């Protein structure tokens, strides 16, 4: 049988390029969104978050954009490095701390 893992969206970039990872969320009432990075064999690591009353937030080399009209979230990584290779998950807060995670995107950075 097929492995579910083979169906994750993938993004391959060259070192130094900018990366854009996209996510569609489902609950228009979600008030808080988070991006996590998960390396092989490790737990998810917090990258950046954004409240629903914002449309953009910047961190170190990362920017999150939120479009509530189409329920879309994106993570932009500037000057991508090999250490950025991982699976990236978006998560939405359904209220009272209950996070619902998206499918995940595999980012591969080639030196």
């Amino acid at each position, binding site marked *: 049988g097929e*492995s*579910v*893992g*083979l*169906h*994750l969206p993938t993004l391959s970039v060259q070192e130094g390029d900018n990366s854009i990872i996209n996510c569609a969320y489902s609950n228009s009432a979600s*008030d*808080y969104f*988070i991006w*996590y990075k998960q390396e092989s*064999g*490790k*737990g*998810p*690591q*917090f990258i950046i*978050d954004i*409240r629903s009353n914002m449309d953009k937030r910047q961190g170190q080399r990362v920017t999150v954009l939120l479009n509530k009209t189409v329920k879309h979230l994106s993570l932009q990584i500037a000057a991508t490095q090999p250490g950025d290779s991982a699976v990236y*998950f978006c*998560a939405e*807060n359904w209220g*009272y*701390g*209950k*996070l*619902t*995670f*998206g*499918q*995940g995107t595999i980012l591969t950075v080639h030196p």
Partner: protein
Amino acid sequence: EAGVAQSPRYKIIEKRQSVAFWCNPISGHATLYWYQQILGQGPKLLIQFQNNGVVDDSQLPKDRFSAERLKGVDSTLKIQPAKLEDSAVYLCASSLDVAGIGNTIYFGEGSWLTVV
């Protein structure tokens, strides 16, 4: 600051056996979560504690899964009897309070369970 600690890291059991996972959250964090992550999928919330009380266990298969946080610090998650479909990574996470801006959820490295 120490992170979320989990043990054991890896466990292989036969179906119908039982297993228990332990979690020690970040010091001072009132909220503790157990997530299940099946290969190739995002984590799914099983149960959420606020101190020693259960906030949400709507997705916990209560016929076989149980969890407790008796003193409001450490927590254990038990599966009895295990099924093949329980093979997954069990992630413990914690936050200062209910998650939101400024109350980031931090995850442990996970406990990898294989049921054969």
